[in-house]
């Protein structure tokens, strides 16, 4: 079962190496082959399936900086809106444990308090 490691490595390398990104744009299958991506990582990339890659375990920070490799805009405003929208309905990420997951805002409420977090996170806090 893919865990996103190979795809993540490809994204990491392309962020640092414009020539690699150019080769990827010219022949994505060849470059994914060089990076030995397992088939389900390749398919998720072909489909631009951010949810699949997120649920496999590619770190969320790396997902954001790899939007353009998945056919999405990397404009700052687009990352906040379109990219986040593409993750709607995503299940938990396996690489995140110590992070509260209240889900997208309810009724346009972006500013939340502890009471808006799921039960696990509403425990006693050191003052």
């Amino acid at each position, binding site marked *: 079962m893919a865990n996103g490691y190979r795809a993540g490595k490809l994204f990491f390398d392309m962020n640092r190496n414009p020539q690699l990104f150019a080769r990827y744009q010219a022949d994505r299958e060849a470059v994914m082959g060089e990076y030995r991506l397992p088939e389900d990582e390749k398919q998720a990339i072909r489909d631009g399936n951010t949810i699949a890659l997120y649920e496999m375990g590619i770190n969320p920070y790396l997902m954001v900086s790899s939007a353009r490799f998945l056919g999405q805009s990397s404009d700052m405003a687009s990352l906040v809106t379109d990219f986040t929208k593409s993750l709607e309905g995503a299940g938990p990420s396996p690489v995140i444990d110590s992070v509260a*997951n209240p889900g997208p805002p309810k009724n346009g409420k972006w500013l*939340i308090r502890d009471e808006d977090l799921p039960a696990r996170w509403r425990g006693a806090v050191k003052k």
Partner: protein
Amino acid sequence: MGEIVLGIGSSHAPGVTGQVEEAGEQGARFHAGLHKIREEFEKVKPDVIIEIANEHFVNFYLDNMPSICVGMGEQHFGPVEPESWLKIPHRMIPGHPELARELVKQAINSGFDLSFSEELALDHGSIIPLHFVTPNYDVPVIPIILNNVMEPMPNPRRIFQLGQLIRQVVASRPKGEKVAVIGTGGISHWVGTPEMGLINVEFDERFLDNIEKGKLESIADWTPDEIGKGGNGAHEIRNWIGVMGSMPANSKGEVATYEPVVPWVTGCGAVYWKV
């Protein structure tokens, strides 16, 4: 005897420079707070900056992920992000290899095995506060990169100890350098998750309230789950905890600004400790 002359903690949301108009008056108030911190910086004229930050998969991937990495380079390239995106031109930032090496050496000799790199590139996490505090980049910077992006992350208490170590090393310097310690990132934010855009204002209030009261040891004991109430981005407060450890015990910080800026997806705060 060297001395630490100033401590700073500041958010580093890319929108701070990349989406100024979208943030309107809130953004202007946050900028004003950073300008206030710059005034404090210029009053004390530090000789060197030790900047505790994290990066976001720029130098390090999962094949090699240091908990704490000290940048020993003569200079550092930054920001890595395109100028069209972050609105900050690329440049080389001067380092301080000699003090950096001394820090690592004393650390290792006191049971604190730090990693090091002679060639770190800096991303928005490091550059944004520098852009405001030292816009001419004429003060050498020793970047210390923490892993705040991939669990398991370093223990917050351990990072507080890193700050205490920095204090000891600076005090031991025969040259008597004046050092500013800057920590960047946070406060509450979610990055790359379906929650991106939420800000836990209660988490931010709690964090800043403890800082104002000088309850720095208390923050150093926050568990990862307590930190996680503020999103995956809140784990960056370890960088501020490093600064807290380098301050005199129980130092009260002054909050220069706090704005929950929804377009910047971050509860943005900036504080300073006068020493």
